[in-house]
């Protein structure tokens, strides 16, 4: 057991720092040219787009979670542009690399990796949440174009997206799962209307997308007709959020600790309140356990081993931690918990931190529902993690 990265990796870290020192200046952030020039160099050095074959504009490096982590750490501390984030690089690109046709890869992967093309995901529908496979958005062939009608929901970044990768029902007569296909659809067309979905916080991170006779070329389909469901599942295994989730837990806890130190209660810092200390102490146990379990998973992934049941738990763990952080924060805010989180309601009279925490108090619920409720997570842990039998309805639902 060794929590330092080890000699070989520390050398690699030096190399990365050297590269940054000579190729990146704080000032470059403002210039798009400078940014894309830097990105190009970073790719050439094998620091970015590591999992992408070079013929698609990547640096085609062997998988190495630890190198990847070091690069993330150094790039972010130098505030240099890292890998393009977003659903496009996270989910579409791996899917195309695994299941796409050559021309699709050539057309879509390079600009997506460079961040020139943005994507949104068209999976959930108002009537299809946990039971995603019941989705109703239909695509019908008209000559050599698909004509799509339906409604998608929870589509992050739909306004800015150039394309949507979308699950549509193309085989109405086939069974529930076998009737779905995986289509790529241009967003900038008359048949598509995007309306933001307002949250209880007043912000809008999500959208609804209405498709009315929207069109896309016949061959903009990944996989064959009716393979959409399986293809959408393959992407899931690309999720590597173990470290991400843990790091986020650690960060929110640190913020909470600051809040407790800065908040006065009965004329002394709230962190001196015995009950608050106990609650923070109990919470820290969960946070550290998550943090160190993140190391375990990082190590296992680096070795190509499976971290086992742990990897099914990350989402629920950070949800649970987020809940307790929010509960403690609300008590620390005391009367400032009466404040409206909406920025536009800001009266400038209250420490700006507080509004953020109320917002976080509500967001901690958002976490629980974004990408599957806590109950779905528990199903996954119970069934995939502990090997318990599947629920009767889900079995029925999945046609088994």
């Amino acid at each position, binding site marked *: 057991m060794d929590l330092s990265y080890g000699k070989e990796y520390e050398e690699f870290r030096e190399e990365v720092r050297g590269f940054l020192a000579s190729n990146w200046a704080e000032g470059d952030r403002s210039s798009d040219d400078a940014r894309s020039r830097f990105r190009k160099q970073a790719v050439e050095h094998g620091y970015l787009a590591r999992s992408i074959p070079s013929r698609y504009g990547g640096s085609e490096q062997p998988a190495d979670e630890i190198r990847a982590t070091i690069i993330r750490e150094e790039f972010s501390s130098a505030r240099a542009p890292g890998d393009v984030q977003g659903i496009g690089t996270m989910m579409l690109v791996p899917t195309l690399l695994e299941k796409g046709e050559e021309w699709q890869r050539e057309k879509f992967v390079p600009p997506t990796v460079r961040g020139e093309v943005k994507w949104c995901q068209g999976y959930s529908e108002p009537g299809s949440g946990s039971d995603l496979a019941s989705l109703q958005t239909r695509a019908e062939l008209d000559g050599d174009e698909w004509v799509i009608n339906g409604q998608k929901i929870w589509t992050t970044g739909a306004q800015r997206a150039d394309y949507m990768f979308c699950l549509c029902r193309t085989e109405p007569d086939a069974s529930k799962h076998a009737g779905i296909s995986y289509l790529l659809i241009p967003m900038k067309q008359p048949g598509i209307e995007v309306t933001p979905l307002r949250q*209880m916080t007043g912000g809008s991170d999500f959208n609804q997308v209405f498709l009315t006779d929207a069109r896309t070329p016949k061959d903009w389909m990944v996989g064959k007709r009716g393979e959409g469901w399986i293809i959408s599942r393959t992407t899931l295994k690309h999720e590597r959020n173990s470290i991400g989730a843990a790091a986020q837990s650690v960060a929110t806890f640190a913020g909470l600790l600051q809040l407790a130190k800065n908040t006065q209660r009965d004329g002394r810092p709230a962190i001196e309140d015995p009950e608050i200390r106990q609650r923070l102490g109990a919470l820290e146990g969960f946070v550290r356990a998550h943090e160190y379990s993140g190391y375990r998973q990082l190590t296992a992934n680096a070795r190509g081993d499976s971290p086992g049941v742990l990897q099914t738990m990350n989402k629920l763990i950070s949800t649970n931690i987020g809940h307790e952080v929010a509960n403690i924060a609300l008590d620390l805010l005391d009367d400032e918990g009466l404040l409206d989180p909406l920025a536009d309601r800001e009266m400038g009279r209250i420490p700006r931190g507080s509004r953020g925490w109320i917002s976080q108090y509500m967001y901690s619920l958002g976490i629980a529902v974004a990408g599957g409720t*806590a109950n779905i997570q528990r199903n996954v842990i119970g069934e995939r993690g502990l090997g318990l039998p599947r629920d009767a309805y889900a079995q029925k639902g999945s046609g088994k």
Partner: protein
Amino acid sequence: MNFDLSEEQQLLQQTVSQFLEKECPVSVVREIFEGDTGFDPALWKGMIELGIGGLHISEDYGGAGLEVIDLALVAETLGYAAVPGPFLGHALASLAIQLGGSDEQKKNWLPRLAAGDAIGTIALGEADGVWQPEQWMAKIDGKLTGRKLYVPYANLADVIIVGVAGAGLVLVERSAAGIEVSPFGGVDRSRRLDTLEFDSVAFEPLPDGRAVASRVRDAGLVLLAADAFSAGSRLVDMSVEYAKNREQFGVTIGHFQALKHQLANMAVEIEPARALFWYAAHAFDHIPEEAERAAAIAKAHCTDGAMRVARSSVEAHGGIGFTWECDVQIWFKRVLFDRAFLGLPSFHRERSAQLGDW
């Protein structure tokens, strides 16, 4: 023993809720949530006509001469519909005058408050989470000077009952010189809050102002407990409704045992709390030696329980429960208000411990 509502009390709740079904459907509350006045004049007028303005004002002054239990039952009914408006501050201000005012002050204000010709409010909060009489800093020497926070509808009020150091509660006319009102921008848009700056303002002490300050505080705790309880039960009802109608995997999601048990836990959390605010109100009216502690326990338990229920309700609604369009947010924010206003559960639990000689 009879621990249940009288027929008059049941009738009172029915009358009010029938009125609200017609005059204050969720659509009205939603409009209010889009603005920031938190006020619907027609609705308030209707409530006054029902006598809600003077329930506990004695009949000599044009009120109904009822008790705090009746106020609490109306607070419950209003809370279930998330009724916007100045009820809370109005009720506490008139209670303060009724209990602590001079005949002069009563004659002067109570009839107008009961008839809705005047709106009253109460200014208890101060910076750093100060709510309690013994903590008030606002000064009076000849004139009133100081800053009060979280004052309901000060923008509409004609008379403001202000908590001050030493004298407990004093009466200030909104029209007096030296009062600056600025909107606070509270999370619960159905109950607007303002911040008040008093710069040597004329005031009248309430003769019994010191004695009744804590009584009025206790009444406030009971009304907040009632509101939180009803918000919680509204959220349970909404969540159960949703579970009976939303379908996934070919059945309504109420079939899923995990959700069913979460809903059961929510109901178990909230339903017994009803008896707690009943008891606290009853104690306020008839068991003086228990009133203060019962109010503290009811406020702490009902608002905390309702908050847990509110969080569960969001989850019970899935993603949609987190949206502005879903009505859950309305009662979620009512509970945020009820829990923080007049002090947190932990604060009142420590008080109840002291009052119980723990």
